[in-house]
């Protein structure tokens, strides 16, 4: 029983290293082509295409991918803690920016929801 857990942990580690490799490969491609997009997105597309064409079997990444996605929020904390460097967010201008983000969010929800609902109704007819 205990042995099985060790094997699983090892599997997760190896698969995360593989995902890390894809993200590094993505960074490399992005910097070679001089593109202003995140390398990890290129890594994501590579992995999706790899899975879709069966070049990368799902079993090769599923444990590691499943695990890293569960703990993903942890990796955001170093960035969000950086907010202590920006106390001006609590100024009138900061509040205005926050309101802008909120209004934009609601507009996005309304447009996306209406457009796809319209589509759905059309398909029913």
């Amino acid at each position: 029983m205990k042995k099985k857990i060790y094997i699983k942990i090892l599997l997760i580690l190896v698969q995360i290293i593989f995902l890390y490799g894809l993200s590094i490969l993505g960074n490399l491609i992005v910097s070679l082509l001089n593109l202003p997009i995140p390398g990890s997105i290129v890594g994501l597309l590579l992995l999706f295409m790899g899975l879709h064409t069966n070049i990368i079997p799902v079993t090769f990444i599923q444990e590691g991918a499943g695990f890293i996605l569960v703990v993903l929020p942890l990796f955001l904390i170093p960035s969000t803690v950086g907010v202590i460097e920006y106390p001006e967010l609590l100024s009138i201008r900061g509040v205005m920016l926050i309101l802008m983000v909120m209004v934009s969010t609601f507009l996005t929800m309304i447009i996306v929801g209406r457009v796809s609902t319209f589509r759905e109704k059309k398909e029913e007819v």
Partner: protein
Amino acid sequence: MQNIGITLLFIVLTIGLFWFMRNLYQRYPFAFFHPVLTTTIVICVLLVQLQIPYTTYMEGGQWLERLLGPAVVALAYPLYNQRTVMMRYKEAIILGISTGLITAMGSIILFAKLYKIEKEMIYTLLPKSMTTPVAIQLSESISGIPTLTAVFVMIAGFSGIIIGPLVMKWTGIEQPIGKGLALGSAAHALGIAKSTEYGELALSMASVSMTLSAIMGAFVGPILVYII
């Protein structure tokens, strides 16, 4: 030697606090108990009280941040799992997320022009509807301020799941497809969590739209930056 101690201390502190806050959230699943929010607040208070500069914290924090890359790559896995649903509703999905992306980024540019907001802040705001790991990395790529982007992403997410359901009710968005797509493309991972309340289909839609709008946004964002 002292540096390694500090590095380890902050890594262990962050993981420990996060683990505790996640358990707390599982017991009391209110939006404001979201572990990223609570852990961030506790660490911020600690740093301010003990007068520890952010750069010192980041000696440990950077190691956790580096795992954002492989985590973004891993998003391909749930997308791959949803490919049947994705193909089945491809028209609604493509239409929904592309108009969503135009609205999300377009409205920011419009407001920014209206209120004369400087370029750096526009770049910071632009990825605000995307899932946080991608938003942080895109913000970095287009020379925004990644930390502030992360804060705006959280504001978008929380307003999307707290006030968003009312907004959808007032505007007659009732079908699970519309709700799921709206939540996923405007309120990212928080929206996905909320969409579970509207059933399996809404959940799939939210999950697909979050990942697809992040991918599309990562390409459209830099183009917009080039244009404006």
